[in-house]
């Protein structure tokens, strides 16, 4: 039964992803992307990763895509406005996508041994529960404490940057 669900979800994911790219109307394309995000959350649920699924929906569907839709609706983009992209831009986009895919692959391969090393794996505890997830994230020795804190510093920096950009009319005296 789960296999059937997986195939249906995958079909929805792929179809909505392709429609996102090929639809001319930017709003329809954004809505297809939202559907795509929801079906990816469904894939997370198939792994029993409830936390990841819900956070994915809150962050991507609930915040980022709404802001994106917001911008598209206010800018009132039409299909005529679409600029022709040069070959260099396309090349750069493909190269950066490949790099991101490489990082993701590396992360997945490297994360497997840590999963097997932990005590919760031996004790048979539900390693997808938020209790275990929190302990792994904030564990200094064999957890992800340092990357977790780096990520929060990165978010803080980007937040300060956004505030600074929106306040550009005021002269900053040094």
């Amino acid at each position: 039964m789960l296999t059937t669900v997986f195939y249906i979800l995958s079909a929805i994911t792929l179809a909505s992803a392709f429609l996102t790219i090929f639809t001319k109307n930017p709003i329809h394309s954004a809505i297809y992307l939202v559907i795509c995000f929801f079906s990816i959350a469904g894939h997370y649920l198939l792994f029993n990763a409830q936390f990841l699924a819900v956070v994915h929906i809150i962050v991507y569907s609930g915040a980022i895509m709404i802001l994106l839709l917001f911008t598209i609706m206010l800018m009132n983009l039409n299909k005529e406005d679409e600029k022709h992209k040069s070959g260099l831009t396309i090349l750069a986009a493909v190269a950066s996508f490949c790099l991101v895919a490489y990082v993701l692959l590396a992360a997945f391969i490297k994360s497997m041994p840590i999963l097997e090393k932990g005590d919760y794996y031996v004790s048979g505890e539900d390693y997808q529960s938020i209790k275990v997830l929190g302990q792994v994230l904030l564990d200094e020795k064999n957890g992800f404490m340092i990357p977790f804190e780096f990520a929060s510093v990165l978010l803080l920096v980007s937040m300060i940057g956004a505030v600074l950009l929106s306040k550009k009319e005021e002269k900053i005296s040094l």
Partner: protein
Amino acid sequence: MDSTIIIEKGVFIVIIFAITMLMAMYSTLAERKIAAWLQDRIGPNRAGKGGILQPLADGLKLFSKEEFLPDTPNKFLFVVGPAISMSVALMTSAVIPWGDKLHLFGRDIVLQATDIDVAILYVFGVLSVGVYGIMIGGWASNNKFSLMSAMRAASQMISYEIAMGLSIIALLMMEGTLSLREISANQSGMHWNVFYQPIGFIIFLVCSFAETNRTPFDLAECEAELIGGYHTEYSSMRMGFYLFAEYASMFISSTILSVLYFGGYNYPGMEWATQNWGVNPANIIGIVVLFIKICFFIFFFMWVRWTIPRFRYDQLMRLGWKILIPLAIANILVTAVVMLLLQ
């Protein structure tokens, strides 16, 4: 999976659905009656005794009205908008514990559709998706007033979601769990969270007014500026769905407020009642108590609506970003320090 569990949960979900619909229906009557009471009028009193059949008459009227489609290139999205609003408003009730348990047919029936590990995050996820109904509907109406209203609703909901999320963190630090069932159970014996987290409760209350688009934050439906708001172009039952979704989400917000801060189904002397009267009577009283709390909050929503005038848009944004968010962060800090000192 055990087929009896499927039947049990199915029946339970149908009952919750019916109750939510009934509460939303009669909230419309209650709103008009309370408005009349606050303005020294009588209110609807023609349909049935004291106007008790008024919601049915309203529903019949909405169903029999002409369905009008505006000249829009996005007919599908126009139809989908109210449907999203309605289904999202009904989805949250899945994780709410309506009571502890009942002992029926020789088995314990847990009074909750599903007890997931991340119940509170689920509620926030559903809330954040709720904006899509308004945004898509407002945009597909092909009317600039509807679009303006949808933009207002979306930016207001996004802004207040942040303060809401932050206000709940202090509570989660105290409880140490995200499951609504465990939070309810932890509050037994008058250890209601509102006594420990009064500031968090006030922030959460203000934010739930903004999330449900109720006065004083109903700028999305500001008639003087925006005609009817995002549902200007809607008619018949499609508009009814938007109005109904507002009342359904008000019911759900009241439920979440009572579960998180006012002890859920707990009442003073629940343990005594369980020991002396048995599990079933004690829990039935618990469900009744939860519904009394919910009705109080629904009344509170309406009371505020007919008392406080609407905010201006910049006041709304200032309240959200410059007052509620810093207050919520200060609340988290104070809670953390107190918890550390008490350890």
